[in-house]
Structure formats: structure tokens, C-alpha cells
């Protein structure tokens, strides 16, 4: 694989070149909240950041998205599809955990019946990842899921901060095209040079999760979920900041003669999420909903899609939970439970 470097002072120039041809999206800060937003110039970006609050899955599976519009014309009703994208896009500054989350969401949206707007967004968006040479936050635990923050897998280009420069790993043809927009700003590295610049593997507190699924599945009837439901407020923040959560609602907004059918984020933590009109609720109390969430991430998602766990260790849920529910503590508790194959 081609290894290059670009100086930090030149990076902006290259990104601005990209912004001329594509919609450039990256982390920006407003009112102390970091979000992935389209920018017109690289000067708007804040690449010195830990991670965005709302994960960049929002660029592919938006918080609110029109599915189609409808209009009554006499006796007829006309349906008009809504284009997901105008321009091709380049996302810069995405962390490996969030890239991994997209690979998991691809299983949901691009397999079986294909979700066309998600797929179009994925196909027409290049990813310039930003490696984490050290964990951005003390809460990070991505390596517990076998994720390597320094790996370019899943991105088109990976930038690794090595002081005055960024190491540039070009992983795909698309990445090559983007580098070619400002070829002169990049210097090729020999293997020896690249090796010298390469930061060591990232260390962070790591959990051995190999027995997690088995231990978890044995706890279906356990009263642990009752206890965990006590501090849980059922607010749904965890699902809104989680990069792998994908539950959504479909609602018509407007009138019967003129309106739009939207898709918007929803949360399995809400009481009425699975409530049927008849009044039957398969997950009637917090206990069932909290249990369902953990089972989804660590048992049923892997089982259904043949993947690893549906968590990337970003710990956004831990940071933002108002009730202080901490995913790392829950996982430790599950692993510590007796039963199954020895403690």
C-alpha cells in the first residue's frame, strides 16, 4: 500500500481542493458541541477533537429523511421520490470506531432488501479517516472489539497525526483520485521512513469479551436487568448517540392532500416503541427494554448478521447517560457472573 505524508500546514490546501469538487464534511464545533457538518473551507474544521457527539452515521442514516412526497391532484395521488444526495461527498476526520460502525450498519441496510438511499449515500461518499494514535478519551475501549484505530480498513484514506505531518495511507482507488487533486502537496515515503514515523499500537484498557455472548445469553431470566433498569430513565440518549443503533420510525407530516412521509430516528428504550394499538406491549417495562438493548448489541445482531458484537467501544452512551449507566460496568458485570464455562 502506498504510504505518503502531508504537512499539517498543507492539509488545508488539499481539503479546499476537495471542497471545490465535492461536498466536504468534517467535524465542526458550535456551542461546544462537535458535529459532522458540510463545510465550505477547511478552516471551518476542528480536527483536534475527541469525537463528535452525534456519530457520523447521521450522514448515511440521517436523523430525519424524507422518503417521498405525496400530493392529491383531483382523484389521483402523486408520489414523488426525494433525492438523497446532490453532490458526491468526502468525509474527513472520521474515527475508526465510527468507520467500523458503518460496516455494521451496511449489514442492516445493504443486505436482504436494499435501502437505496443509505446505499447511495455510502457509494457516493469517500472517507478520509483520522487515526487515533492515543485514545481520544479515557472512556474509549474499541480495542476490546478487535478494532485497530491505526488501520485504514474501511476508509479510502487514513491520516495519522505524527507531529508536524500526517502519515497518509491510501487504501482505495477513490483515495488515489482524491490525493491526485493536489499531488504536489504529498511526499512519498520509503518503507524505512514510514516505519520510523508510524506510531506504536494504541493502548487502552481492554476487556476480554470472548465469553460475553455465551454468558449474556445465560442471563435472559436473571434479575440483573431489573437492577439495571433502576437508574435508567428510559430517555433514549444512548440510542441517539450510538453509532450502531439503527431503529427508526416512519411518519407522515402534512395533510392528506399534501405532505411528506419521513423516516426519523427512534429508540427501543421508549415505552411505546413496540406498543401495539391493541394495548399489548412485548416489552412493557424498563427491564425488558434494557435487556433487549444489550441482547441486541451482543447477541442477536451478531447472530442475525454473522458479525462480531454490534458495539465499537466509543463509549458515547457512557459519557451521555443521565442516569449514569455505564456500558463497561455492565459488560464487566455480565462477564463476572457465574454459570456457563467457569468464572
Amino acid at each position, binding site marked *: 500500500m502506498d504510504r505518503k505524508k502531508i504537512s499539517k500546514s498543507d492539509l488545508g490546501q488539499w481539503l479546499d481542493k476537495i471542497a471545490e469538487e465535492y461536498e466536504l464534511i468534517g467535524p465542526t464545533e458550535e456551542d461546544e458541541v462537535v458535529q459532522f457538518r458540510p463545510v465550505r473551507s477547511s478552516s471551518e474544521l476542528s480536527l483536534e477533537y475527541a469525537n463528535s457527539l452525534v456519530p457520523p452515521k447521521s450522514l448515511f442514516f440521517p436523523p430525519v429523511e424524507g422518503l417521498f412526497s405525496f400530493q392529491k391532484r383531483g382523484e389521483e395521488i402523486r*408520489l414523488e421520490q426525494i433525492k438523497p444526495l446532490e453532490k458526491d461527498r468526502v468525509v474527513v476526520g472520521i474515527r475508526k470506531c465510527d468507520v467500523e460502525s458503518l460496516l455494521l450498519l451496511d449489514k442492516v441496510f445493504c443486505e436482504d432488501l436494499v435501502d437505496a438511499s443509505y446505499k447511495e449515500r455510502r457509494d457516493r461518499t469517500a472517507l478520509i479517516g483520522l487515526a487515533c494514535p492515543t485514545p481520544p478519551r479515557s472512556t474509549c475501549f474499541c480495542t476490546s472489539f478487535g478494532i485497530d484505530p491505526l488501520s485504514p480498513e474501511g476508509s479510502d484514506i487514513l491520516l495519522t497525526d505524527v507531529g508536524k505531518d500526517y502519515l497518509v495511507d491510501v487504501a482505495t482507488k477513490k483515495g488515489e483520485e482524491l490525493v491526485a487533486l493536489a499531488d504536489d502537496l504529498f511526499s512519498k515515503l520509503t518503507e524505512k521512513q514510514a516505519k520510523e514515523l508510524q506510531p506504536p499500537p494504541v493502548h487502552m484498557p481492554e476487556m476480554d469479551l470472548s465469553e460475553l455472548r455465551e454468558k449474556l445469553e445465560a442471563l*435472559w431470566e436473571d434479575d440483573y436487568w431489573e437492577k439495571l433498569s433502576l437508574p435508567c430513565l428510559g430517555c433514549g440518549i444512548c440510542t441517539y448517540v450510538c453509532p450502531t443503533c439503527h431503529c427508526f420510525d416512519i411518519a407522515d407530516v402534512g395533510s392528506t392532500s399534501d405532505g411528506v412521509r419521513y423516516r426519523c430516528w*427512534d429508540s427501543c428504550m421508549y415505552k411505546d416503541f413496540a406498543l401495539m394499538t391493541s394495548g399489548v406491549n412485548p416489552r412493557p417495562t424498563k427491564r425488558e427494554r434494557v435487556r433487549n438493548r444489550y441482547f441486541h448489541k451482543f447477541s442477536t445482531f451478531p447472530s442475525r448478521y454473522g458479525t462480531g458484537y454490534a458495539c465499537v467501544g466509543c463509549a458515547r452512551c457512557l459519557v451521555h447517560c443521565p442516569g449514569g449507566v455505564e456500558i463497561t460496568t455492565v459488560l464487566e458485570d455480565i462477564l463476572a457472573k457465574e454459570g456457563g464455562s467457569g468464572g
Partner: protein
Amino acid sequence: MADNIYLPSMATVKEVRPETPDTSTFVVTFDDPTLRESFTYRAGQFAEMSIFGVGECPIGIASSPTSKGFLEFCVRAVGTVTNAIHDLEVGDKVGVRGPLGNSWPIEEIEGKDLLFIGGGIGLPPLRSLIRYVLDNRDRYGAVEIVYGARSPQDLVYKDELREWDERPDVSFYVTVDVGDETWDGPVGFVPPFLKEINPSPENKVAFTCGPPIMIKLVVDALEEMGYADADIVTTLEMKMKCGVGKCGRCNIGDKYICRDGPVFSFEQLRKIPGALEV
């Protein structure tokens, strides 16, 4: 853009047939003539009916795929969308998105004797299969239908019930929870009624659909009578939105009712934690 799996096809209401005080059958045909001809489905599948501006609702397709050119839905008015459906008149437009879900195990049951046990509005999903079987009568063995509703008013497909009763190649049994002056048939709940009839499990597959409590007691009764879980098949109801296994709402364990179901055998359900609590 490629096919939008959330985009319904436009259809027109051709007929509205009241069945009970709160339930009606809606017969719809697709506006696009090619679609009208080419649309296929399997008995047991469902579709999402759209009232634009109000919302969508999953309804079992009650007609059999052997009837071409139209779809029948039996809808009870309980919520926002279903009440809006009940406001429809002949000539009004609806959206139809489908067919969705899996289907009754049509091939596996060939040559077997079939037992259908329905309660109230649980009959329409069964009816799709019943009609299919009756339209392909020589592929299947004996057909027994056991049906019950709260009262004579609440029986759906009243005319068809008479038809089934009169057919020599169908054994038909009907009961109501509470009778009235017009009723001179059996009175009582479906599960004990079923036990009285005592249909043999030999070479038989049982299909049941109805209120959760009825299903529970029916399955208990069938097991008492010697039916194996693999030979008891039901169709589940869950809150649905996307209908295509993506919105995360209708799951039980790792199964999405809208994709892996709604038809399941009890052998399958017993393997899924939490399935039988629903």
C-alpha cells in the same frame, strides 16, 4: 435511484364489505395495469396499507394468490390508520407496499390433513391459506376448520362460512362465546370446543390465529391431544413500521416478525427467548 423499498404502489378501492360492526373487507386493485397482472404473493404474506397523510399499517393479505387481479384486506378499526381506512369509499386511493414477510408452509403441507383454528379477526390470515387449499383441493388431504368469535355479529366472512359448512370436502365447526336470538349453533370458547371435536394429530398440521390468550389455550389443547410443536403453525402480530426488517421494532430474539415471520411453527418459537411471553 434504485427501487425504493419504502415507496408504496398506488391502488384503488373497488369494494367495501362490512363484516362485523368494527371490521370490513376492502378489495383493492393496483392502478398500474402491468402490476395488476404481475403482482404475486404467497398465502400468509402481508402488505403495508398507506393512507397518505395519516400513515401505514401492516395487514395480512386475506385473498388467495389463486384469485388474480385484486387483493383483499380485512381491517378492524382500532387505531389512527385503520380508522382512516374505514373512511375509504369505492374509488378512493390507497398505497400498497408488499408482499412482505414469509408465508404459510404451502409446499410442506401437501398431502397432509389440515386443521385450521381461528378466533375472531384471526380468521382472515388463515383464510388466505384456506382459499388457496380449496382452489388446489386435490393437493391436500382432509380439511377441518374450527372457528369462533365473541358473538354471532363478530363472525367474519359470514357468507363464506356457510359455503365451507356446505362443502362435502370440508369439516366445518363454528362456535360463539355468547349467543343471541339468531343463533342456534354451539356456544362456548374455542379451546374447549376444539377439545370436544378432538381432531386426530395423525398426518396433520394445525394452523391457528386469534387473540393471544386463545392461541395459548389452543396450543395447550393441541399438545394434550398429541400434536408435535413442529406441526402447530401460527402467525404473529407485532407493532411494525418498515415491514422490511430494518427499523428494529418487531424483533423477538434475533428474528424480525416482518422478515422471518409472521408465520412461525411452535417448534421455532420455543427456541427464541421471550417469544412465548408475547
